[in-house]
């Protein structure tokens, strides 16, 4: 149950069992979990319009978790749950940007311009291409990581990636570990601009 305090942007949420569980899980996050959370927020910010920062994404994810707009599925770790919310924030932001364009341009004009009203906005396409390039640059010195990145972006499974590039399971796992460290490191350093 959600209300807004008069004359302020604060939302007042009546606590139910789910909220209690989520609030306690967030309060129990260890230092390492919080570092992971920052890295996740930085990562998902890559999928957002440049004006949105990682702190915005993180705070909005916590808010949506606590206000009940997203249900916490049983057996899903809290970090995975929050990461899922950040993903939907990305989609929402681009959908909102799209709606703003639609207000300015009539729907039939959009069909003429883009071929389909559901096609992504040019901004999103450009932003995504730039973000993919940034991820590639991050692993530029690691050819095996680049192969894994390309495979993951195409939606391939680890077995398919190994088969495609003649990579052993051990090579794959070792590369993944290097990638994790790079991602965490960059979660601390990555510019949000």
């Amino acid at each position, binding site marked *: 149950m959600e209300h807004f305090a008069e004359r302020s942007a604060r939302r007042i949420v009546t606590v139910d069992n789910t909220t209690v569980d989520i609030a306690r899980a967030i309060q129990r996050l260890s230092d390492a979990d919080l570092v*992971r959370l920052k890295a996740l927020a930085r990562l998902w910010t890559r999928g957002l319009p440049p004006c949105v920062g990682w702190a915005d994404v993180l705070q909005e994810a916590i808010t949506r978790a606590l206000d009940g707009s997203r249900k916490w599925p049983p057996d899903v770790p809290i970090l995975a749950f929050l990461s899922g919310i950040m993903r939907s924030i990305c989609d929402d932001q681009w959908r909102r940007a799209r709606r703003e364009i639609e207000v300015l341009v009539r729907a039939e004009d959009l069909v003429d311009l883009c071929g389909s009203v559901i096609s992504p906005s040019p901004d999103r396409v450009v932003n995504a291409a730039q973000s993919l390039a940034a991820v590639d640059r991050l692993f530029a010195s690691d050819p095996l990581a680049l192969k894994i990145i390309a495979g993951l972006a195409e939606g391939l499974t680890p077995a398919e990636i190994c088969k495609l590039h003649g990579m052993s399971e051990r090579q794959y796992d070792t590369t993944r570990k290097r990638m994790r460290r790079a991602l965490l490191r960059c979660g601390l350093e990555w510019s949000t601009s």
Partner: protein
Amino acid sequence: MSCWEPHIDLMRLLEALGREIIAATELEVRQACTEEKGRSIAARRSAIAVIWRGPALQVQGGSSAVRTANEVRELIEAVSGDPSDPFDVEKGYIELRGSRHIQGQRVLQTAPLPDQPNSISKPFRRAALRALILRGF
């Protein structure tokens, strides 16, 4: 020939990389914290101190992990409308302040308050009354 859709590739990639971050062990997190740009090898070595404490092997990742954790903790606490007591679920209600940047265009509305055991009505009304008195109506 199919069209390249970078936004779909990106979302798939971010999901996969997000899973990697979640799966990272505590040791990997600490190591990453000590490998931040600009640190010398000697500084990294001294920062990763592996110490034996009872049955558990503890790895200290230096102050970087603690600093980052504190930064994130502060951000999370700032979500609460009551920073002195963030997410005190015992009150029966919590105040939330989401990101203004993201919620910028959300329409705020005041809804009637329910009469439930966990209802916020009394404290809310008291707070509202106090605010009105302070503002001199």
